């Protein structure tokens, strides 16, 4: 009867993977100027990327402008198995190298004296954990891939003296998830004593979509002080897709025949994928016209991941609800902008980003960790042209599961990331 368990585990494991996306896949680098300031931008918000960071900020921008660019992300990581674990001792692994391209595009159009319209397109959430073969943790996850794309029209209004602004808009977000994992025979092969792979499960959703909103305020207390705050709603996006199962043959016809009877049929699946809210408050200080210093607190509502329900349409018995228990997390961001010449700015930043993932949830699907980061960047502007670029180095604190992984896949995850952003702007 243990063969029968294979069906359920085969089906469940990959879909459980979806749950582990619930952490650490926010990409707040949606503009090179903001990124150069480590994302501390809610109280500055003085370029069109304010549509993402604080829509109230576009009210202070009184010229029609466009801004487009990208952030290229590279990860280096290493997993080292726990030397005390009978599952992972001696195991190592790392991701296949990818350069992720996260584009952004913004346009703003002032209207009258106090109002500005804007629209932005960006991908604020995404993830890829693509483990390089051969990977022992393949029975948990070989590859997990989340992609999103948002379109965010906003409008902002400011008082005539420009000291107070408020803005908001709607966000239309599309998302899809692909998960890929192998299944091992759930007991040692009695013919060989070995533990063979018996199936591959690929769960791929189509793009689903949801609508949320964002809003913000910007308050200039004086020439020297500004306060900004913004909020972007959480979303639950319904995803529908397809589960494809492929048998991996052990070479023993009898065992393979038994396994074949346990592999679920390819079928439609659906789930509801939760995305967190983002609330940011920041204060900026400009001691003189050449310096801007901003400190932000960003709180991300990862506690939305209380549970995940996944439904199999052909074999409903494989459907499940899984508790998640993520926690809201804070990020602290410090950014500095210095006007060096009339055309050049230099920027610096530093951040500390708490991870929201309970230790029990750290797995090959998404091994998140607290992050510390440092950024540097520059901006050049002359006439209508603006060019910004930044380099952000993120170091993920070593995360050791310390024997607490429920699947026994314990070990140390070490991750670093390098993010290079560039944006080109034009003011009409």
């Amino acid at each position, binding site marked *: 009867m*243990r063969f029968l368990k294979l069906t359920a585990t085969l089906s469940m494991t990959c879909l459980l993977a979806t749950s582990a996306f619930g952490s650490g896949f926010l990409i707040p680098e949606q503009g090179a100027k903001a990124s150069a300031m480590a994302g501390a931008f809610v109280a500055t918000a003085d370029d069109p990327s304010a549509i993402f960071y604080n829509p109230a900020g576009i009210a202070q921008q009184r010229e029609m402008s466009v801004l487009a660019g990208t952030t290229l992300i590279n990860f280096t990581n290493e997993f080292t*198995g726990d*030397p*005390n*674990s*009978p*599952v*992972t*001792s*001696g*195991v*190592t692994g790392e991701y296949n190298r990818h350069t992720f391209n996260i584009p952004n595009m913004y346009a703003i159009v002032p209207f009258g004296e106090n109002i500005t319209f804007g629209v932005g397109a960006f991908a604020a959430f995404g993830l890829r954990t693509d483990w390089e*073969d*051969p990977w*022992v943790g393949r*029975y948990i996850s070989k590859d997990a891939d989340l992609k999103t794309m948002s379109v965010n029209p906003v409008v902002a209004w400011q008082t005539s003296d420009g000291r107070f602004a408020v803005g908001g808009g709607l966000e239309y977000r599309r998302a899809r998830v692909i998960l890929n994992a192998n*299944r*091992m*025979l*759930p*007991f*040692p092969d*009695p*013919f*060989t*004593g*070995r*533990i*063979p*792979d018996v199936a591959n499960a690929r769960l791929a959703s189509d793009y689903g979509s949801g609508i949320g909103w964002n809003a913000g305020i910007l308050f200039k207390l004086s020439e020297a002080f500004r306060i900004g705050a913004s909020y972007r709603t959480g979303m639950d996006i319904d995803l529908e897709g397809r589960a494809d199962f492929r048998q991996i043959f*052990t*070479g*023993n016809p*009898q*065992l393979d025949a*038994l396994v074949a009877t346990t592999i679920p049929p390819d079928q439609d699946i659906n789930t509801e994928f939760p995305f967190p809210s983002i609330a940011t408050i920041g204060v900026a200080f400009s001691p003189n016209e050449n310096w801007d210093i901003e400190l932000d607190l960003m709180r991300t509502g990862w506690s939305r991941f209380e549970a995940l329900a996944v439904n199999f349409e052909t074999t409903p018995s494989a459907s499940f609800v899984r508790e998640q228990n993520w926690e809201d997390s804070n990020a602290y961001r410090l950014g500095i902008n210095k006007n060096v010449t009339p055309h050049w700015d230099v920027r610096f930043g530093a951040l500390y980003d708490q991870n929201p993932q309970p230790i029990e949830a750290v797995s090959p699907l998404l091994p998140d960790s607290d992050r510390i980061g440092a950024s540097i960047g520059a901006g050049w502007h002359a006439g209508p042209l603006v060019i910004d670029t930044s380099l952000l180095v993120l170091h993920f604190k070593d995360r050791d599961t310390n024997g607490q992984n429920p*699947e*026994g*896949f314990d070990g140390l995850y070490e991750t670093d990331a390098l993010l290079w952003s560039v944006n080109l702007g034009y003011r009409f």
Partner: protein
Amino acid sequence: MKRFLNIATAVVVAVLIAAPGYAARGEADFTTFVALGDSYGAGFESGSLNERHQVWSWPAVVARQAGLSLCLPGATAAATCFAQPLVSFPGISNELVLNSLVPSPVIAPAPGQGQPLMLNFARPYNNLSIPGATVGALLSLTGAEPQTPNEPTAVSFARFILRGQGTPVQQASALHPTFIALWIGGNDYLNVIFSGNPATMTSATDFAARYEALITALVTANPNAGMVVGNLPSSIPPYLTLVPPYIVNPATGQPVLDPAGNRIYYVGTNPDGSFGQLAPTTLIPLQTRARLAQGYGIPPALAGFPPFNQLPFAGTPLSADDVITADEIAQVVARVGQYNAAINQIAAARDIPVADIAGLFQRVSHGMQLGPVAISAAPVTGGFFNLDFFHLTDLGYLLFGNEFIKAINTAYGTQIPVASIAQLFMNNGAFFGDSGPGVGNHLTFTGSNSGITDDAVSGIVSFWSRQPIPRRLGGRNRVVNH
């Protein structure tokens, strides 16, 4: 009661002495690692000693994790590798292999003839574990014993493991070991499985005296060597649970029921000479299936009816030695408790850590999940016991070795990584090699057992009631003990 208190005191003392911070003797220096033991230490698996599984013997697991390489058959005496008396497949005796899983498992010896591959290795083997060895045998066997009919298993194996060059203790000491691992004692009580008679167990007094003598000999000859020993399990192997104490319809695998819907228990001889139906808690060793197939144990009231009347001994009670009663099991458990108390006391007196093998077997008996696989004491698919149903699989020996590694790490403050079951994953490529760590081409699974005779079941009892497993050694049939 007094004895119990003494034992309890000894255990408490041992535990206290073994608490973290206690200084283990010598150092965990694996420059020259020697292991002594029995069939478990030899890597005996599925009724056979052969290289496919010798590389997974618990000493080999410990050696590999401690950074040693395993000797290939062509290794010279000067090599610092961990040497074992490798035997070619299908081994000595021929390894039992699974020919078919459904509808019922069919298990038979692999064909061919295994041969020792390192008979001329010009120094003692690092692994001096001898299948069938008792505690006493490690002090007395030399491999030079004259060949006799029906000689003990350990004598036969000692002939090509010890090669007449001295006792295991002497040969181990000749290597000037820096670290010694010892697991012995199973054969001092496991004979009950085959004899059905608890009287065959070594007395607790004799066990303690022999264990004391063994440890003393090792410590005296190797005063600076680090050392680890292991305690003994008393959980019940599948060898004793495969044949139920009641009649089973071989066609359905279901119990035969009387008109009242009750199971019909076999009839056996009581201690007082009378006979009656076996208690539900009675265990029937696998070898008894042969007598069941002849009709022994069929209640006399059924002996005259078909199909039982076709069996020559239907109506004849099973003998007391054919079964193991709950009382006898209790005696074994109590005796093992006494053995373990002695092991703890003797080891503690010399600052030797004790690996918790009993705990491992206990956890397995409850079932445990290791990564993607479930491990249990279940036969065939449980993953822990092999196809002779009381020795271990490669994975079982791997976990066995891990208990020793854990004990060493705790006592010596070392950080030897435990062995991972991922070593047994297929298709791991660069991590461990597809077949796990081994001795080159000598560890290659053919994948096919074509040509193996199917000894399919016949008779009134279920498939487990086939003829006793023949274990050939030196051309003669004999039963291999633990």
